[in-house]
């Protein structure tokens, strides 16, 4: 009974530390020690944390712009003398700038926990059975979705024409200026997901020492970290532009004198730029896992293993240390399969079996009985 209460207390303390990493203690100790010979001592701790972030952005942007610059549409008619129309330049400029629409950002804490986790089995009697079983399961889920519908309707015009000089009793001069119509539309940085996600790892040391003969000491660590990231972006962009530059359409009829119509330049410029539409960036980060401090076979003081240049991941962690950034690619769970299936092996075995059976039937069987023919 005492051992059960002891184990339960240790479990509660440990779980409390796992969920509250801001605890003041510098170190978490999980220890089985000082128990008598033949005793059976177990501590089992399981901690599961799940972090789920769901972000959704929907934007519906509509820009309706109508711009008109006009120095034309002038009339001088039925004059007894000379008639003259001179217009200035007409410039109409429309600019629409849609930037930074829909972005989500997740910055999940990741890295190493300062508080080391020490698992210790020491000083227990002979033939005791001591078992520490810890399981930590961290699951991080980030779901981002962005939807943007942008509609830009532009009606832009510059006019210096459509001037009229009719029925004048003299010379007629129509001189128009330049018509310049400019439209600029920029849709930039629409729908972007940026995530930094990872897992928090403990610094772990395991110590089994000073236990009696015949004792069985077992420390079991199971770490399972999983990260699910999903980013969906949808952008529907309509750019509807009517852009007119006019210097013509001038009329001079039924005049008695000479007629001169000189028009300026008509320039229409439309510039539409769609940049960085729909993107996602994921930074996977993790604690640089220090190999667990393992005791040597048979117990004793822990030995710190040498650090390799490319440590192989251990335990149940599916996301490993120093993961770099993967842009626009889903992360799978296995390295690419570049071998054949088992069929090649099976077919080889089948062929060899066929060969051996054929050889036996051909050479290993007895002489066939004489053939008897029915008369």
């Amino acid at each position, binding site marked *: 009974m005492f051992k059960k209460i002891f184990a339960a207390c240790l479990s509660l303390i440990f779980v409390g530390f796992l969920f509250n990493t801001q605890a003041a203690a510098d170190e978490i100790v999980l220890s089985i020690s000082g128990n008598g010979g033949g005793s059976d001592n177990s501590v089992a701790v399981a901690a599961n944390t799940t972090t789920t972030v769901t972000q959704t952005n929907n934007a519906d942007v509509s820009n309706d712009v109508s711009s008109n610059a006009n120095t034309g549409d002038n009339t001088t008619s039925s004059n007894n003398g000379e008639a003259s129309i001179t217009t200035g330049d007409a410039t109409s400029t429309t600019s629409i700038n849609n930037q930074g629409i829909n972005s989500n950002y997740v910055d999940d804490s990741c890295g190493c926990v300062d508080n080391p986790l020490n698992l210790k089995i020491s000083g227990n009697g002979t033939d005791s059975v001591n078992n520490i079983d810890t399981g930590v399961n961290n699951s991080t889920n980030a779901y981002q979705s962005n939807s943007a519908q942008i509609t830009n309707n532009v009606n832009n015009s510059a006019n210096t024409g459509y001037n009229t000089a009719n029925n004048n009793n003299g010379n007629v001069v129509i001189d128009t200026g330049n018509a310049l119509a400019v439209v600029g539309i920029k849709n930039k940085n629409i729908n972007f997901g940026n995530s930094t996600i990872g897992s928090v790892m403990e610094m772990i040391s395991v110590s089994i020492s000073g236990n009696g003969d015949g004792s069985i000491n077992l420390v079991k660590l199971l770490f399972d970290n999983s990260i699910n990231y999903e980013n969906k972006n949808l952008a529907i962009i309509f750019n509807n532009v009517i852009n007119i530059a006019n210097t013509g359409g001038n009329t001079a009829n039924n005049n008695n004198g000479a007629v001169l119509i000189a028009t300026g330049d008509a320039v229409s410029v439309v510039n539409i730029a769609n940049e960085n539409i729909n993107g996602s960036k994921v930074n996977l980060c993790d604690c640089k896992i220090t190999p667990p401090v393992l005791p040597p076979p048979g117990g004793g003081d822990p030995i710190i293993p040498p650090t390799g240049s490319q440590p192989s991941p251990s335990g149940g962690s599916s996301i490993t*240390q120093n993961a770099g950034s993967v842009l626009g690619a889903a992360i799978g769970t296995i390295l*690419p399969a570049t*071998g*054949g299936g088992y069929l090649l092996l099976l077919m080889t075995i089948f062929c060899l079996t066929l060969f051996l059976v054929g050889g036996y039937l051909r050479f290993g069987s007895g002489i066939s009985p004489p053939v008897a023919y029915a008369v």
Partner: protein
Amino acid sequence: MAFSLFLLLFIYYPLIQLYLFPQQPDASIKRSDFYIEIPKINVLSRVIEDVDPFNEAEYRKELERGIAQAKGTYLPDQNGTMFLFAHSSDLPWRITRYNIDFFRLPELKNGDIITIGRKGKVYKYKVTEQKTVNPSEVNYLLNTKEKQLILQTCVPIGTSLQRLLVFAEPIL
């Protein structure tokens, strides 16, 4: 008996050919934008750029055309890890269709030279390490900060049980 021998010969002929009747690599490959050459195991093949290593349908299709460079890893002129993978074997009736350039990858030893050509530039690497890992160890695809080359294929030959990784560092 004869049938079984014929069937065995049919299955393994591409592999027998690799050793007994090795074909001269197509020199025109060296004029392509991206290729790999490993003289020791008689490999000269095109490299297909930006292949998603986690999309089996995609990379199986691309591996019919050459050796794949994993999407998200770096190119030889960039400062990071380049990850290339190719078949070591395949199903008996497809083994001749797919390139099995990495069939002899296990023969590479430390110090062997690997040449990568890309857009007219040649990059040389020296093999530094071989490692057999489990399929789940995708960290080699994600941990791309170190400037190195990793070649991957499946072992044991004929299965997809494990992955052989050959690490090489650039020769400066």
